[in-house]
């Protein structure tokens, strides 16, 4: 009975992973099909022409460059803003804390369409027209919330006594910030930067309404799907999946090696104590 249920669990897990992976396999497969439409089923032979076309598509390279610039700008703004928000909300109590926290979390739940349109209208009244700069501002408004949550979680394990001690020993305020608080927050800041970067690359809704005429990768792929699709998009998808997979495998190998070293070290320690006891 117990065994059966476990088996059922394994089967479900495998089926779920298959469900997640299969569409990606289909999409990547279409990149190699010698057919004008992106599909796998009437297989017309293996080709690499879509990769060549992808390489020669200048618009896509421009779009990728734009995407990276926007993502870097979002990281540069969202990390300090989210960190400042977390420090501020952590230093107040009671009702104010609740309201402030609510305001800082709410942008995550606001639909991207609303953020995009409100950003566009707000800056338009100051005669600042649409373009990728507005996309950055719109994206920061909710991506800063993710950074805030990460930093706030990290702040819970921070001992404010350290800051007091540093001040008593004559450290300046800037030193307290730079030498005590920030080093403690580094892991959260790193994670925040990574999440900001990927959220920005993924973003579509905000960008669509604020971008003006500029392309980002998501918007470009979207417009490509709507007007005359060719399998160049699949070639791009294949490359992105491969990139992700290589990263995942590298990460997994690294993790296993670390786990092995850890286990070996533990083993050594255990043997050493056993030896000591025996002696």
């Amino acid at each position, binding site marked *: 009975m117990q065994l059966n249920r476990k088996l059922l669990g394994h089967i*479900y897990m495998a089926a779920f992973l298959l469900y997640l992976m299969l569409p990606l396999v289909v999409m990547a497969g279409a990149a190699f099909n010698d057919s004008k439409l992106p599909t*796998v089923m009437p297989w017309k032979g293996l080709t690499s022409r879509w990769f060549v076309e992808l390489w020669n598509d200048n618009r896509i390279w421009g779009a990728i460059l734009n995407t990276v610039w926007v993502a870097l700008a979002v990281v540069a703004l969202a990390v300090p803003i989210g960190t*400042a928000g977390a420090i501020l909300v952590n230093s107040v109590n009671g009702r104010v804390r609740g309201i402030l926290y609510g305001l800082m979390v709410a942008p995550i739940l606001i639909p991207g369409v609303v*953020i995009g349109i409100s*950003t566009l209208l707000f800056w338009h009244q100051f005669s600042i027209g649409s373009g990728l700069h507005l996309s950055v501002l719109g994206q920061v408004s909710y991506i800063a919330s993710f950074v805030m949550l990460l930093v706030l979680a990290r702040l819970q394990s921070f001992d404010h006594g350290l*800051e007091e001690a540093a001040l008593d020993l004559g450290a300046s*305020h*800037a030193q307290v910030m730079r030498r005590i608080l920030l080093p403690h927050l580094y892991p959260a800041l790193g994670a925040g930067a990574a999440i900001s970067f*990927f959220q920005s690359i993924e973003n579509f809704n905000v960008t669509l309404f604020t971008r003006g005429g500029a392309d980002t990768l998501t918007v470009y792929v979207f417009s490509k799907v709507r007007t005359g699709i060719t399998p160049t998009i699949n070639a791009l*998808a294949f490359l992105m999946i491969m990139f992700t997979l290589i990263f995942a495998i590298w990460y997994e190998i690294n993790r296993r090696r670390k786990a092995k070293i850890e286990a070996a070290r533990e083993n050594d320690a255990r043997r050493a104590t056993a030896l000591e006891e025996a002696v």
Partner: protein
Amino acid sequence: MEQLYRRYGKGLTFMIVSLTAFWLLVLVILPDFKLLEASFRPYLPVVDIGGPKDTYSLGNYAQILGNPVDFSSFGLSFQIPARVKVFVLTIIYSGMVTLIAFLLAYPLCFYLAKVVSNRSLPTLFLLLFVPLWVSEVLRSFAWFIIMTLKGPLNAILMALGAIEKEIRWVDGYSPVVVTLVYAYVLFMVFPIYNSMQSLDNNQLEAAEDLGAPWWRVHWRIVLPHSKPGIASGSVMVFMLSAGSLLVPAIINSTTGNWFTQTIQGIMLEGQDWNTGAAFAFMLLLFCTVAVIAAMRLFRVSLSDIAR
């Protein structure tokens, strides 16, 4: 506040407060007020802006009421405005996406939290993360390929002899629902897993020893314990689905329009920013009400949802 001043001094405190103020005021609150203000103004040519015709009215909101169409639901059939219909259907189908995602995620989370050995857990999570890193636009595109008329789904079913003629899958709302579930199911998995993981195994064993059948163990112990995670996942998936523009636009089912597509049409094709603002504000209002309702229903706070 005084603490902040004492620790970091005048300059840094000022910086922290002003960065936060810039975020909350300039990037969040004021744009939303502008959205509300613009939504009451008429759509005018540039010369008339600020002129005598530029008065506040509910005209933009009234635009949702035009163009009545037939609507039948629960055996009742009546006429409602086309855009209201799209709005209502968007909400209904987003609810359906949330429910399906929950049903798919729950057994998986239980497996991950309570059945599988700790050693294989990191590998499994890595595998789950891989599709999440492939961008949303490409994941929707994958389903578009699968479901096209000459696509692999029809080809496989025909090869198996299950169907004789190709089926038009991209019709109505079901292709959009299928793709949304695929795109967002992982946002249901992680929060439920997190809350389920903290459940003490002894509780499960005790219940089983006392003779509870498996479904009662779930109903009385696992389900109540994972409530915060379920609330968080459901709110996340519902909001993402109702606010999604990418997925319905890529699937592009002409008989399965999403409300965000209506807004996009008004804003970008009609270039009528004021009516667009009114519709966007309606969506915002609905989402706010929905989140508050979900918080009351599940008796959780905002900090539970945002975890």
